[in-house]
């Protein structure tokens, strides 16, 4: 039996989600824009999916735009606002610890003449609202801050930032909520929030699915032009089966959040406290972080070695974040938190799901300790 503790990278699709995807693909394959009966039925089905998502997120159906996932959602939100509103200003505020799909999107806009402020974070990876305020300028068009950090699980003060931004009605506020969906509540009805990105595969849904919340009245320059689907914001024949699968995954994860959030938090606390006690292990995640992410560094050890050693025992964890682990040696996020090179290049991320059991976590802890001891012997 594999113990999968890399749920921050992706989750295992729920069987019911797969079943929906398959049924829709088989029975409702028509193009929802076609005017014949089957097309109409497929269009209805997608509307129902959109309605269900909107209802669960507490927004209006017209505010839900289907996307292919987190990277697209973040790109669409950031580039969409930047390009659409550039005559009003070309300044963007984000943080140093954003996911690459936000960070590199902002970097790309710099090459097009935009100015970007990358806000610092504290030791726990958290942005200071006061810094946001100081960074705001007359030509600021967008603030993009993630809700839960994908690497270390810190929770940003979204509500306080949104409160602040109510005072700046010309500035759009985008939240990368990919890691928080189903784990940390987010009130999208907050007046200060304009855009929020969600992804399906982090919530036991499917890769290639996701939604972007776009508050009514917010206009975006599309990334894709074409047949005008998705309110003209995102052309392309709709991935109805994927969109329905997202609606289902969202419903299921919300049910689990209701029933098991407390329990997940408890399991994480036990994991956190056990790791805290281990020799040579440094905690990078704040104790009061998202209920599914624990990030540690074991300076002096190459993280790949630990990951491979654990994998041999059927336990899957990862380094920093899957999206950047292939490229960067040191974690940009850990460096932003003020950690030195040694610590920043020895990160390990353990990410849980609602299906993770306490027994699995105990097995991991024992294996982890064993692996560390053995490696120490080799090194000595």
């Amino acid at each position: 039996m594999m113990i999968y503790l890399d749920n921050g990278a992706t989750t295992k699709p729920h069987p019911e989600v797969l079943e929906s995807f398959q049924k829709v693909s088989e029975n409702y394959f028509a193009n929802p824009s076609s005017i014949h009966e089957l097309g109409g039925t497929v269009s209805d089905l997608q509307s129902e999916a959109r309605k269900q998502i909107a209802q669960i997120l507490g927004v209006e159906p017209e505010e839900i735009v289907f996307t292919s996932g987190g990277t697209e959602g973040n790109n669409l939100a950031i580039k969409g606002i930047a390009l659409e509103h550039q005559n009003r200003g070309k300044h963007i505020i984000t943080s140093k610890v954003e996911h690459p799909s936000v960070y590199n999107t902002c970097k790309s806009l710099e090459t097009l003449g935009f100015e970007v402020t990358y806000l610092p974070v504290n030791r726990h990876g958290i942005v200071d609202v006061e810094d946001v305020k100081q960074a705001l300028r007359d030509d600021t068009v967008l603030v993009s801050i993630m809700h839960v950090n994908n690497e270390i699980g810190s929770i940003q003060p979204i509500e306080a930032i949104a409160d602040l931004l109510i005072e700046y009605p010309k500035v759009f506020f985008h939240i990368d909520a990919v890691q928080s969906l189903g784990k940390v509540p987010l009130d999208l009805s907050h007046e200060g929030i304009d855009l929020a990105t969600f992804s399906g595969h982090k919530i036991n849904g499917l890769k290639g699915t996701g939604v972007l919340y776009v508050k009514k009245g917010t206009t975006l320059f599309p990334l894709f032009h074409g047949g005008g689907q998705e309110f003209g914001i995102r052309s392309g024949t709709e991935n109805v089966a994927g969109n329905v699968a997202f609606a289902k995954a969202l419903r299921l994860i919300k049910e689990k959040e209701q029933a098991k959030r407390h329990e997940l938090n408890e399991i994480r606390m036990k994991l956190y406290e056990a790791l805290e006690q281990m020799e040579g292990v440094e905690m990078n995640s704040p104790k009061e972080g998202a209920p599914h992410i624990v990030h540690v560094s074991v300076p002096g050890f190459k993280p790949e070695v630990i990951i491979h050693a654990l994998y041999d025992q059927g336990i899957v964890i990862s380094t920093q974040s899957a999206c950047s682990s292939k490229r960067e040696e040191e974690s940009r996020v850990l460096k932003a938190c003020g950690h030195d090179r040694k610590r920043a290049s020895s990160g390990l991320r353990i990410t849980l799901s609602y299906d993770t059991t306490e027994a699995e976590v105990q097995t991991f802890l024992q294996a982890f300790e064993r692996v560390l001891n053995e490696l120490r012997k080799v090194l000595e």
Partner: protein
Amino acid sequence: MIYDHILIRYGELGLKGKNRHLFIDQLHRNLKNVLAPFPDVKVSRARDRMYVVLNGQHPEPVIRACQKVFGIYSMSLAMKVENKEEAIKAGALKALNNAKDAKTFKVNVRRAYKKFPVSSQEMNRLVGAHLLKNTTGISVDVHEPDVEIRIEIRENGTFIYSEVIDGARGLPVGTGGKTLLMLSGGIDSPVAGYLMMKRGVEVEMIHFHSPPFTSERAKQKVLDLTGVLSQYGGPITLNIVPFTKLQQKIFREIPNRYGMTVMRRVMFKIAEKVCERRGILSIATGESLGQVASQTMASMNVINEVTNLPVIRPLVAFDKEEIVNIAKKIGTYEISIRPYEDCCTIFVPSSPVTNPTRKKVNALEAGVDFNEEIEEALRNIEVLEISHAQTQKQPFSDLL
């Protein structure tokens, strides 16, 4: 939940003199129908009120259902206690503690049951003192209290409540006769139906369906609209008239610009026949003056010529915006704006006549006999009984 009753007040019903009991009986029936999905809930009647006894049912959905019943002026979630001073004090305290963020309060006692030994004034004072003594940080404000604790001492018990919730007002459906509503699928006609129901009128629907020029989905729209409206007055009979042959004949035989006028006349003829058959005394439409070509005064004059039944147009003086607002409020707007052709939009000529005359239209119709097709259409009417529950079935629930 501390409240176990919903107190129902009727508004205008009090004005109806001798017929009063007929109105109240109807309201009682309608209320019971609306609450049928809640098996534990009972409705009981007092002289000038009704009480919905919750018996453990959560009040939220019950209130929402009651808010759709015409004839109810207002409602309150209430708790029933014994006619004893101590019980009343304890109940009032619960009600105050239950009120969110209340910093100030006022007590308002009504003693309808005069045999209760303590006067209203005295009870006000006693209850107020009890509340002050047993709470902290809450004071009395008789002018603008955050919460008003109302206490009604009646023969069968004392009711304590603090909030008054608006009802739908109007008159109970079924007290105002019956009308046949011409339902197109657009925004206006469902609103007209709603307003008729609000005046106590029972509504039956007639819809003209022209396959393949109008799709099954246009028909579904009409079914869904009827379903929404049935929440306000119980199941609704829907007559679906096959209209294709007539429409084709009009298109062929009548100059294009007059097609709409003649089509409307034919629809009215059919509607009148349906009224006759079903014992209905009037026709209602969603027409509003000046919106489209068929709704000018001249058009109304010509179209109305074919029937001497009363044609009621509750929206005649409404602005589009007002109509849209009602449609949104009652839940028909989203259905109405679904983009499917209905029989009114599909044969619309590019420039319909806005100023037709009876003389001209009669001359145009003189050579054309629609009777045979009208008879055929009447023979083939599809009659459906639509209730809200039916149309509420979520079609894709297994996938979502």
